[in-house]
């Protein structure tokens, strides 16, 4: 069942989360990981020597990352997910928690450009990284991005609860593949569930945004 989707690009959110968990284990050792404590590896930046990483927790730890173009410094409990940090602490409620386990895509944000399920990554793991949420997609003056405008034009939303995650998955898709065909778009949002059934409208929106469709 989910295996159908596992190798699709849309699932990279999971892979990404898995990658960060892997590095996390490598950096800190299993016992510490089991206690739910995160390393400071990312502070030093990816690829740096991780031998002498400080161990954080169990109390709140300070983290610093770039969020929608601005630096954020905040203290978080090590077990806090990125999603909960965004929603509960930073009041960015566009990203939704629907399944809380990486299977619906409603919480999708970009971390360094890649689509990530923010429910399945720890806040401490984005230290030093660039995070973009749906709130960071339109211009500072509130002008919609071309992709957002295409969603509006093609009515690629009904109740709208899946929409922020859907838009962010499409955004990440377009950044790595500026002219995706239909199968590529479908694969790109294969991890995003829309219960209202907007998929076809999303296909059309992405085609417009990538200059392939256009008609409304």
């Amino acid at each position, binding site marked *: *069942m*989910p295996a*159908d*989707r596992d190798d*699709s690009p*849309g699932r990279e959110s999971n892979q990404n989360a898995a990658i960060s968990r892997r590095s996390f284990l490598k950096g800190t050792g299993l016992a510490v990981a089991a206690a739910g404590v995160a390393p400071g590896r990312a502070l030093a930046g990816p690829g740096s020597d991780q031998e002498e990483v400080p161990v954080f927790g169990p109390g709140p730890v300070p983290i610093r990352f770039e969020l929608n173009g601005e630096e954020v410094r905040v203290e978080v409990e090590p*077990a806090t997910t990125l999603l909960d940090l965004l*929603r509960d602490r930073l*009041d*960015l*409620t*566009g990203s*939704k928690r*629907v*399944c*809380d*386990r990486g*299977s*619906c895509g*409603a919480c999708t944000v970009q971390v360094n450009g890649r689509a990530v399920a923010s429910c399945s990554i720890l806040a401490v793991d984005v230290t030093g990284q660039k995070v973009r*949420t*749906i*709130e960071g*997609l*339109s211009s500072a003056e*509130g002008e*919609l991005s071309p992709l*957002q405008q295409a*969603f*509006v*034009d093609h*009515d690629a*939303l*009904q*109740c*709208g*609860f*899946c*929409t*922020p995650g859907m*838009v962010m998955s499409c955004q990440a898709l377009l950044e790595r593949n500026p002219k995706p065909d239909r199968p590529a*778009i*479908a*694969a790109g*949002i*294969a*991890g*995003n*569930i*829309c*219960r*209202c*059934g*907007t*998929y*076809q*409208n*999303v*296909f059309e929106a992405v085609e417009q945004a990538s200059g392939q469709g256009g008609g*409304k």
Partner: protein
Amino acid sequence: MSRDPQTITIKVGFGDQVRELVVTIGEGDIPPYQVGDRHDEVGQRRNRVDAVAKVTGRARYTYDRKGAGMLYGKMLRSPHANANIRSVDLSKALTMPGVKAALDFVEVFKDRSARYAGCSVAAVAAETEAQAEAALDAIVVDYQVLPFAVTTEAAMAEAAPQTGRGDDRNVSARGLRDGESAADFLARIADQDQAVQEAMKGQTVVSGRFSTSVQTHSALETHGVVCDWDGDNLLCYCSTQGTFGVRRDATASPQLRARNARVVAEYVGGGFGAKFGLGREGVAGALLAKRAGRPVRLMLDRREEHVDGGNRPDSFHDLSMAVGRDGKIVALKARNWGTPGNGSGGAGARNQAYYAIPLVDKVELNVRTNAGGARAFRAPGYPQGIFALESLMDMAADAIGLDPLEFRRRNDPHPIRIHEYDLGAERAQWQKRRNRNPGAGSDPIKRGMGMAATEWFNPGGGGASCLVRIMRDGTVEVRNGAQDIGTGTRTVMGMVVAEELGLRIDQVETFIGDTRDPQGPGSGGSTTIGSLTPAARLAGYRAAEQLLGLVAGQTGWKAEDLRLRGGMVVRKDGGRLPREMSFAQACALIADEAIEVTEKHPMVGSGRNASANYEGFADTNSGLQFAEVEVDTETGKVRVLRVVAVQDSGKYLNPKTAESQIRGGVIQGVSYALFERRIMDRHQGHMLNADLENYRVVGALETPEIDVVLVDVANGKNNTSVMGLGEPPTIATAAAIANAVANAIGARVTSLPITPRKVLEALAAKGRKR
């Protein structure tokens, strides 16, 4: 302004099917949109007014609401499939860090029964979610554990444990005798209807057993509330399909005793029939807030939503149909049963819908099980009943050697659908795409096409009001307190008002989902648009009338010669006015701050005979769906390639959002056909797949190309000539897919969902028969 009931002649219909009707419309009502009317705004493809809020993440759903000092509420749920609660001990939980309030549901709801795994028994509110969860673990519940039955089959068995309370039997059916088992009952009434028995003699009779699975609504936003009190007044954000129903529940609740309640649901993250009323979670959320003296957010998590958020009952059908030599259906015999879980409603599959069937012998059994209760779900009873009926229709057509489309046409009394057969057949390329030799050929991939019909019956009801406010500065507000669950209600409400004011939709502001605004309907049964837009249009009309009255007073022009159009005051007859006057200039004539008009959906007749509707071209809306599938006979996998959905629904006020609605209905139908089923563990009594990877919902990769054909009908029945569109597009999809699979492989899968395994079994059974 005339307020008398008026008898008028209206022109209704579509294409060359046009009729004149003499109807009496309600007091103060205006004639409906009809054949030949020209509109500037209505009927245009308009973007949804809340689309920008939704694509930017700015839309605030209940789940996104937060109050100062807000606590997190969580409910404790029974781990037993059937139990009585002896006691609930909250004392330890109340001492846990961060806990501010706790509830014992035996005390709150005066209910000691926990009849399914996942039934709520207690609740806490704490500073953080984690603290609330930890506190749940500290609640001690003493259960008297009882035997249980979680599947329909198990609960129907001879010595099944009792699933309900008191003397309630598991199975209920009209005519069921005391002490009689379901099997004995079904045997006894096998041929209870002599007329049907007689009629079947000498005819071609086809029979089959069909079944469908329990489907959960799985709206992405779960049930829940954010509650805050100001003295005895409750503010309740609620993810609901009925703001006013929730309000009524809150003020009527003996637990809450709210003097007043304001319910807000500006954005709702999906609603498919399960989100009516405050519910236990709503009462708990409000009560926790009251006890803690702080706002509380209590939203279900995904598992709770699956287990306790409602579902569509499963269904089992034994059907027989007799068909005469002329291809007309003579009689239908239906026995069906299913489980609404431990809910209050019935299983209610609809087998006898819409074809002209002179004789019907139907018996229905409801089977209570120890599982979460069913709730209304998009066209309750229809997708399951129609799957069985339409499967049987194809079998009957086959038996008498008629094309399935032609067979349906011969038995179809619907004045619109009868014209949709040709339309659909052409669009779907029925003749070309049908597989002439089902199952034949060496290629393991088989293609086929099937079809099925749909019908629904809701032109809306009364009880909706709409407020239109034209400000002196030219701003226009349109307000109603009902909710938009993603259907586009808010947009069409604004469009019908904009039309009357000669404006575009983006020149009016719409407000929705707040019970401080005028009353509106619950969004169920596809009633919203037909209830609300006639009130909105009338309010817009009367507001325009007042504004033109001011213009006439100031200019000396005759008000009855004037109308508003294209942002201007113009002459109705198209002639020139002595000078130009814009809408804004007209508004500047308003002496007070604003013109304010509130109008109610006008009723026809009075007292008990009052009706929200009058005669129209058709009393129901109808449609046809054609599905083209590809079946891999080696793996059993079915892929739906394309669905053509032909649908009438009265006047299409906004074809863009209507098309989305239809696509969405089809997609849910594909999901129901191929993937969705609640799986219960017989041994432990739990739902095994209460998540979104094992409870599988259709995704982008499995979405077919959906071709929507809108049949626009000036229908009458209300002043906007609309019918509700929520339910009809999801009724026929699974049936059409099942028929397409049969057409592809020459073997029929009679059970939903159509899993690869069932396909392979059907192929194997066909092989054995040879």
